[in-house]
């Protein structure tokens, strides 16, 4: 693994938070995914070695938790809440709007590589439904009109690059 020095220092720091090294499995996966964008095969063996585990111990964690992914995604990650309160206020239409705007399907990278649109379960902001988490930023009351505005903004930012 070729990780940035900042990521490495965060990794060494977080391992000290626990009396048992194995507890650092999730934090290490988060840190590596934040830098690499997904969990590559060598990350699993690398973490296992770091934490004195078998690779299967890390692999089983990666496959259990929905937030860890084994494939690269688009530059931006659009996660639309699918669960009841958001769905009652049009979450499915919101998701469809993003799919249409970026010419993609949920779970796939858009053809221009700009976004991945995903349907996710409850984001715990049901009072401002429908909600969308884009990378780390929560967007509230995202109806179709607002979804279109957000999509336009993402496209404009992509053009500038």
């Amino acid at each position, binding site marked *: 693994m070729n990780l940035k020095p900042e990521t490495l220092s965060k990794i060494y720091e977080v391992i000290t*938070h626990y*009396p*048992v090294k*194995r*507890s*650092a*499995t*999730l*934090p290490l*996966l*988060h840190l590596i995914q934040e830098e690499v964008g997904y969990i590559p095969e060598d990350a699993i063996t690398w973490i296992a070695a770091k*934490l004195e585990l078998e690779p299967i*111990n890390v692999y*089983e*964690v990666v496959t*259990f*938790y*929905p*937030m*860890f992914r084994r494939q690269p995604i688009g530059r931006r990650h659009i996660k639309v809440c*699918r*669960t*009841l*309160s958001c*769905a*009652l*206020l*049009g979450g*499915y*239409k919101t998701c469809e709007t993003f799919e249409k705007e970026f010419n993609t399907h949920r779970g796939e990278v858009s053809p221009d590589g700009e976004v991945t649109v995903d349907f*996710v*379960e*409850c*984001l*715990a*902001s*049901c*009072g*401002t*439904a429908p909600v969308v*988490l884009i990378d*780390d*930023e*929560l967007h509230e009351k995202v109806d179709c009109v607002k979804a279109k505005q957000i999509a336009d903004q993402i496209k404009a930012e992509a053009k500038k690059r």
Partner: protein
Amino acid sequence: MPAPEQRRIIFQHIDEPGYSNDLACYVKHGGYEVLKQALTRQPQELIDEVKKSGLRGRGGAGFPCGVKWGLVDRKSGKPIYLIVNADESEPGTFKDRYIIHQDPHQLIEGTMISCFANNVQQAYIYIRGEFPHGARILETALAEARAAGFVGQNICGTNYSCDIFVHRGAGAYICGEETGLIESLEGKRANPRIKPPYFPAVLGLYQCPTIVNNVETLCHVKYIAEHGGEAFAKIGTPNNTGTRVFCVSGHVQRPGYYEFPAGTITLGQLLNEVCGGPLPGRTFKAVIPGGSSAKILRFGERFKGKRKVGADLVDYDWGVEDVPMDFDSLGMIGTMGGSGGVIVMDDSVNMVEALANINAFYSHESCGQCTPCREGSLWMKKITTRMVHGQARAEDAALLKGVADQIPGRTICAFGEACSWPTQSFIAKFGDEFKQYPETKKTKAADSRVLV
């Protein structure tokens, strides 16, 4: 009867103009004074105050906090851990989000007081992965508190030391279950543990005695340490003490979070007055009063029975609107107060479709270790999804009920109950809609709302 006034204890500073989530602001508002004062007392005194307060856990089960603390094995010689359950994963619940984002030091102070009371030297805040911002806010707040001597070595100059670290989850609902959470914190799949015989209070994190408390519960502990257990018990109603934060979502005019003395507000007052009633031109049809796994209530149904008021047994005859929002009353009418997440559905919603949405959630979130839950939640999802998108049959309701009835009581954790209660209650209360669904589909508008 008009709704009572809100009484904001936990949410006192939420959305207050000018209130920020940094230490300086918190201290300016009297922050960490309660901790300083608590450190001068005997830990047992603090535990007794919490017992006296009658505080019940705000995460879902409503288990008395003082009893939970009382079960901790203090003789084993092993370290005692405290874990803050900030997983907030029950659909319909969004109270902890605001505490974490806007008032993180309140949580840290409540946690430190609880740690001191229970002789804990290491605590973790297990925060759901979907709160990346919240995790950073907590880390910043902890760094501030550590630098100021409120967390870490020799807290407030005493010889008591305790550190708190933030641990992020990664999108699994089951991590809200306390033993699943512990497994996850140990770096494993969040498969809940078999209990009894051993509860986390005896064998928890790293096989050491462990306390797992909800974010809101720990904030209440801070209030109890400040004002005393008796003062806390005077708020609300007997056995349902303190305030309760209700999170209202779905089809009301003003969804949001509202804090009231427990048991003093009825569901009707909450939805009609506080939340402004149904959307224009609509009527309420159904409500889930305590997070998506709580059994659904149908507007128009009535609940009759006897209940204890003081020493007397009195008859009650309630419509959905008349039910007081407390653990016991909601329990009596066959549902639960749970996590305080109230999901409202109006007459535009088809119940088969709403259930299909919920079933898709539980099927996605089952950890998979118990067959009845893994297979049952999957088949309930498959059947309801088929009803909506494929062929619906008149006998599907009976089929669904048959699957749901075989899950509860046959699983390691309460997820089995949680995933079967929606199906059981939807069919019990809206069986006619399930039977009519094959016909309903034929007349459905093409652009109608999609729920699954």
